[in-house]
């Protein structure tokens, strides 16, 4: 099911008389293709959960429309939209068993959709198998691990065969190892069911690793939509560039003069066809190549060995932030006590942003 958001806006009234109105979602326009896994990504408080609530129908938009396929669902209550929702803390009913939890949505069906007890049980078992918890049907939520509870929550959301599956920070309550495992699992379940899935996360790595498409947002505004690799390789603005990627992108004060990019007094790169202007220079950690004759001279701080790669931590007068982190192959050798390090830059790992608007130039 294709999901379309049209001029979607949600404003919350001020909390008290002095406070200002909060715009949680500001004029969203995008289309989510059928059957894909979409990561809605942004720092906390950026409005991603509100977006999810708008799609699920728990909140009604101030302006704009929501379509599932060609159907306008803007004014439909949540139960008539056919969405499945998985909460960050799973929101399982603590007094019901796994099976009762999964069946719960089916018991609400009315009219022609009404199911017999037998059919409901059948359906519950089927869904439980899909998420591989069919051996735990008689357990109560508190008798299960976080990962298992997560699966029950997903099963409960899937059992009605929703048109759209929504997940709010689905992995944030799991420990690191389970998180890796569960995210593969999520990917598999989504592939198996083919249901259009939107999940919210603040963890860019998580979003990039499994999404078909990511939507990066901040302060209620969509900053970029695209395939994970495309967004990483071609960030639309400084925020997106900084938000994606670990270690973070390194940002320098720079200037374009005569088709050359200057950081401080050093011309570090040729930039043919660019106007003269002051810029932010963003360089990905993997964009540095150690070179004794390289144009960028940094003061060496320390080298952190990571096995396959080494991370060179250095400083430069024009940098922003605390230090420059570059990831280079461990084949490069560094002398102990070395005072400076010089780099060459990979042009496609260097991004220039307007000093004022912070948009990519």
């Amino acid at each position, binding site marked *: 099911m294709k999901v379309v958001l049209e001029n979607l806006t949600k404003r919350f009234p001020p909390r008290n008389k002095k406070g200002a109105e909060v715009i949680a979602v500001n004029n969203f326009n995008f289309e989510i293709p059928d059957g894909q896994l979409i990561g809605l990504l942004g720092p906390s408080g950026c409005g991603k959960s509100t977006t999810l609530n708008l799609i*699920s*129908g*728990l909140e009604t938009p101030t302006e704009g429309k929501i379509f599932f396929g060609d159907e306008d669902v803007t004014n439909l*209550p*949540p*139960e*008539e939209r056919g*969405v*499945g*929702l998985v*909460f*960050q*803390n799973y*929101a399982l*009913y*603590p*007094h*019901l068993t796994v099976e009762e939890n999964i069946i*719960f*949505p089916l018991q*609400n*069906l009315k009219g022609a959709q009404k199911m017999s007890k037998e059919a409901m049980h059948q359906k519950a078992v089927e869904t439980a198998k899909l998420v591989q918890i069919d051996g735990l049907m008689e357990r109560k939520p508190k008798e299960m691990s976080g990962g298992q509870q997560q699966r029950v929550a997903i099963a*409960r959301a899937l059992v*009605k065969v929703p048109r759209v599956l929504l997940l709010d920070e689905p992995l944030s309550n799991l420990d690191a190892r389970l998180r890796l495992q569960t995210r593969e699992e999520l990917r598999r379940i989504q592939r198996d069911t083919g249901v259009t899935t939107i999940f919210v996360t603040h963890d860019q790595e998580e979003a990039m690793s499994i999404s078909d498409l990511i939507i990066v947002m901040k302060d209620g505004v969509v900053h970029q939509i695209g395939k994970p690799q495309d967004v990483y390789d071609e960030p639309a603005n400084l925020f997106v560039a900084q938000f994606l990627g670990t270690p973070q992108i390194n940002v320098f004060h720079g200037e374009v003069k005569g088709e050359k990019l200057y950081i401080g007094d050093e011309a570090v790169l040729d930039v043919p066809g660019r106007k003269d202007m002051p810029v932010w220079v963003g360089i990905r950690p993997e964009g540095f190549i150690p070179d004794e004759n390289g144009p960028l001279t940094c003061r060496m701080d320390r080298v952190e060995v990571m096995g396959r790669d080494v991370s060179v931590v250095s400083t430069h007068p024009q940098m922003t932030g605390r230090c420059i982190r570059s990831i280079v192959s461990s084949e490069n050798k560094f002398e102990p006590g070395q005072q400076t390090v010089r780099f060459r830059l990979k042009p496609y790992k260097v991004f220039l942003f307007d000093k004022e608007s912070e948009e990519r130039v």
Partner: protein
Amino acid sequence: MIEKKSASFSRVLIYFFLIVWALIVLFPFYWMVLTSVKSFASYNSEYIPRFFTTEPTLDNYVSAFEAVPLGRYFLNTLIFTVATTGLMMLVIIPAAFAFARLEFKGRNAVFALFLSLMMIPTELVIITNYVTIVNWNMRNTYLGLILPSVTSVFYIYLLKENFEAIPDELYQAAKVDGTSDLKYLVKVMIPICQPTVVTIIILKVIECWNSYVWPRLITYDSNYFLVSNGIQEIRENGFGRENTPAMMAAVVVISVPLIVLFLVFRKKIMAGVSRGGTKG
């Protein structure tokens, strides 16, 4: 060594003290059971009461049920207790749900009003309630007994606090699944808050079983007496000339149900009372 000696001495003192109070608490119960199994003749012949009896008899229980309609009082109290408690749950659960879960204009104002009613003592409103029930011609009816005590602001408050502790996500999950508010209340909220609901029911049952003042005002026909009024009636007019053993038999019969209830639900009752129940 001296330290140890004084420690064990104070331990003995503590136990002695605790046992004395336990005896003071238990003695009336012992005495009432003891007296109830002494025959009328032997009781009356004991100028100096004896602490035991060699010939226990259950005759007093028979005469207690025969001389006064004890069974009737029991039935009345049972009807009164079940109906009052049941009706009260039907009144307070939806109210607590509305305050805890539904959003509506004036919620805070109405809730503040409810809370302020918690300070009003029964004694102040009982006068008009009496007049109201008399005017409605409801003296000597079950309805007259029941109606004024089917709401409790305190229990609404207690339940509302409990309902609010249930995470919002559960409600949202239920909404997405198409669950109606009523079904959510019945199938999710009440089961989750079951301990509190049970506590409230138990406290209310105790209150009903022991209520005396209101039933006394409202009933003068002994067909509608509750056990408390029955006891008072027995004391003042029953059993002819001071048949104390039969009186005690009646007292035992009346006391047993609550004591059994207490022994079964000991933990729940004590936890419930310490969470804010007060007698009456």
